[in-house]
């Protein structure tokens, strides 16, 4: 089990009065009073070795007093254990930015979404919304239907007469939109100009791989300081999750990290299955299919990364080479699932449909051909002197930084931390297949590049083993059968699926880092609160530090090596 045992913390009980230890099948929780929170977290980090910061957020209970329950998720990489620390608050919390920098960004998000104030936070600004926005969207009392007093320019236009009915009648859907002044205030609040010029990089810029807005304070070409304004793609996915059924939310996981939809699907479905306790019910075949598809998606995603990365460094041709291979993968995925980008192939209890005839042969042909292509690209890039000079020694991340900034995925592995959830906490068929975790030595951009290339080869290994297994079970079922349909209703459309009371943090290894779901269920068909742990966002939070004192040309190199996807950062 990935969770730490309760008895490990008994010695802490003497030092911290009021420490409660709660151990369940799906989670282990330490409850502590707000005043002792920082001391406990410090003890966990420094004495107990829970060094890696995973996530922090709050759950809103409007009826209770105090109102908010805050949780901190930590990980101990050496022993593969996770722990959740919880505390109650009425709107104020001590800041953990001294312990984990990543906490700073998590706190900004909580401030933005719940209005929690953090004492000792250096620069408490909103994470996604603009500064002059008055409301806290994730609070339960946020009016979903909008504000009647607000005027919304674009949606309120009456084109064909005001005869649209029901939800289509946008006239009642009032919400706020930022004006240019609002954006200017937001920009001013982020970065105080200290050097020569402030270069606005984005929100629409070819180098940012999405709608991110960077501010570089430049001294000549040297970056003096740098900040990021997020939220251009914020859609309130967590709020949507609270108002959708478990299976309905699946389609939103596609749209978060849109380059690795299948992996996100899998992570969500596995989280819900674990919460239901039906992980063993899922048929073997479905597990193999999910694993294989996820690995195909991982190669697909890494190919896009490689292409755009080379493009950023000026090697235009690699971009077209990788996209050619990516196209083949897209065709394979389309042939199996019917969709190319937003796939929603997995279901709670299995997959949507069986593999079509010939799918295994096509995939086998692909993995036979692909290593040769990979070798060819490596011949152009890996030993190229220009490539080496642009990459080696740039954006160095130390092991301590990985823990301090909460980095996961290839970024953490590039720095030598072998944190891979496929091995640490095997879900689906990952426990039954053989593969290695590549790790880097220096933690620079070049190491991350090599790690990702090697990951593609390991993915091929996994796919091949899945193929061998799947070939033997052509007629096997691909969807779980409920042992007692009256209690637990499992169906392909997922309607009527009731989840018992409980909570869980479960995560999957996405191509861009750990994608975690903290689900708090009060029972029923909808989750009460879903906190998504976006790997991209915490990977990005080290960016301002890496960019300090580097030239602007390294901005693209470092950013592309962190490989963030805005859909997942902003949600």
């Amino acid at each position, binding site marked *: 089990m990935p969770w730490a045992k309760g008895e490990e913390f008994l010695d802490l009980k003497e030092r911290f009065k009021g420490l409660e230890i709660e151990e369940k099948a799906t989670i282990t929780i330490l409850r502590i009073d707000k005043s002792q929170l920082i001391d406990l977290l410090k003890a966990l980090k420094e004495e107990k070795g829970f060094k890696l910061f995973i996530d922090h957020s709050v759950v809103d209970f409007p009826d209770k007093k105090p109102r908010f329950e805050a949780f901190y998720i930590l990980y101990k990489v050496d022993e593969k254990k996770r722990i959740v620390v919880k505390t109650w608050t009425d709107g104020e919390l001590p800041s953990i930015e001294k312990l984990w920098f990543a906490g700073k960004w998590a706190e900004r998000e909580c401030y933005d979404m719940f209005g929690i104030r953090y004492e000792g936070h250096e620069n408490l600004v909103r994470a996604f919304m603009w500064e002059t926005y008055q409301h806290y969207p994730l609070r339960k009392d946020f009016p979903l239907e909008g504000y009647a007093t607000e005027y919304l320019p674009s949606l309120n236009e009456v084109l064909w007469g005001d005869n649209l009915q029901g939800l289509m009648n946008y006239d009642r859907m009032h919400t706020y939109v930022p004006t240019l002044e609002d954006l200017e205030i937001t920009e001013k609040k982020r970065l105080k100009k200290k050097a020569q010029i402030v270069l606005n990089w984005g929100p629409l810029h070819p180098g940012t791989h999405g709608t991110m807005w960077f501010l570089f304070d430049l001294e000549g070409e040297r970056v003096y300081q740098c900040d990021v304004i997020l939220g251009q793609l914020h859609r309130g996915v967590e709020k949507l999750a609270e108002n959708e059924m478990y299976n309905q939310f699946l389609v939103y996981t596609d749209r978060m990290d849109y380059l690795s939809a299948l992996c996100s699907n899998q992570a969500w479905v596995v989280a819900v299955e674990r919460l239901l306790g039906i992980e063993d019910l899922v048929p073997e075949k479905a597990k193999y299919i999910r694993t294989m598809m996820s690995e195909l998606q991982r190669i697909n995603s890494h190919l896009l990364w490689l292409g755009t990365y080379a493009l950023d*460094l000026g090697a235009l041709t690699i971009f077209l080479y990788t996209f*050619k291979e990516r196209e083949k993968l897209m065709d394979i995925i389309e042939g199996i699932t019917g969709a190319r980008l937003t796939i929603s192939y997995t279901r709670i209890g299995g997959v949507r449909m069986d593999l079509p005839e010939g799918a295994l042969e096509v995939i086998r042909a692909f993995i036979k051909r692909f290593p040769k292509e990979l070798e060819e690209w490596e011949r152009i890039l890996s030993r190229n002197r220009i490539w080496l*000079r642009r990459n080696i020694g740039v954006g160095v991340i130390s092991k301590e930084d990985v823990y301090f900034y909460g980095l996961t995925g290839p970024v953490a592995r590039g720095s030598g931390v072998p944190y891979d959830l496929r091995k640490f906490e095997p879900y689906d068929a990952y426990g039954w297949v053989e593969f290695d975790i590549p790790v880097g030595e220096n933690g620079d951009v070049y190491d991350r590049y090599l790690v990702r290339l090697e990951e593609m080869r390991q993915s091929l290994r996994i796919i091949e083993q899945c193929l061998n297994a799947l070939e033997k079970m052509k007629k096997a079922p691909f969807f779980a059968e409920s042992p007692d349909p009256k209690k637990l209703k499992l169906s392909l459309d997922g309607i009527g699926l009731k989840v018992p009371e409980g909570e869980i943090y479960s995560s999957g290894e996405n191509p861009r880092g750990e994608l975690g779901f903290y689900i708090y269920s009060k029972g029923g068909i909808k989750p009460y609160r879903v906190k998504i742990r976006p790997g991209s966002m915490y990977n990005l939070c080290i960016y301002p530090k890496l960019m300090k004192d580097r030239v602007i040309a390294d901005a693209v190199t470092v950013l592309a090596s962190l490989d963030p996807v805005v859909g997942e950062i902003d949600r």
Partner: protein
Amino acid sequence: MEGFVAWLIITLIKILVILAVVLGVGAYLTLLERKVAAHIQRRPGPMVVGWHGLLQPLADGLKLLTKEDLFPRYGNKFLYNLALVMALVPATLVFAVIPFGPEFELFGIKIKPMLTDVNIGILLVFALGSMAVFSIALAGWASNSKYALIGSMRKAGIIVSYEVVITFAVMGPIILAGTLSTYDIVQKQIDQKLWYIWLQPIAFVVYMFAMLAETGRVPFDVQEAEAELVTGFTVEYGGMKFGLFPLVEWYIEVLSLSAIAVVLFLGGWSPINIPFLGFLDPLFFLGPLSPFVWFILKVSLLFLFVLWLHWTLPRYRIDQIAETAWKVMLPLTFVNLVFTAIIAPLIWR
């Protein structure tokens, strides 16, 4: 009087021919580049307009010419337009001193196939070449955009570094030839039965690098750097004004500098050289046209080499480029210069 009129007519014809050829070829080189790039990237390239996209440059030109002429607010309109002129004119002027072939006689008049054989030809070429820095600095400054400013400063820095390098690199062939006239340099190579590349390989390599840097080709295209600076100093230009900069930088300048490289190192219009023994001409059947074909062939080969690099390599960072120029290339050219000075008397005989 008659002599003057004949000279005037001949010169005017030469100007027309050179301008038509340079600008026409410049436009069609865009198609060549797109085709070469496409085949390197395993795709067909332009195929729709004309047979295998033969009319594509015309379509591109038409599109660019009919676009709306945008001008950035708070920019300086005079400098903005002056930058264009400063880019186009010096780059085209270089062709005035490029010899396309040997002297020939037509209707009893001796004609050199070059506009003017000034005795400081090479000096003129590099003087005009350094004018490019003005156009880029002006373009960056007048656009009133931070991207353009950074791009133009980068480019100015590179040109200043590589002007020094390229000047010292061409010093070698000049010493060997003992003249600055482009026509005479080629003639000397034919007389001495020696392409200077055989004695000046270092200078040639350095020259090629400097040429890539000056024209902003990969791996030195930091002033464009579409990933970080969008397109650098041209970001605020639109329509044909935008089209002019790459046309000048990537095609006309590459062409003129390749031609100069052929003149200095590859014996101009002479056929294949066996050092100190003589020349071997597999194209002898072309008769008097053979020198011209040789010249064009050599220039095209150099141009294709540049394209090949452009579509294969990644790009350097600005500080690494300047470092290479000052720390590696400049000392190399010094060594080469000393070496040339020692062996030059042997060649002069």
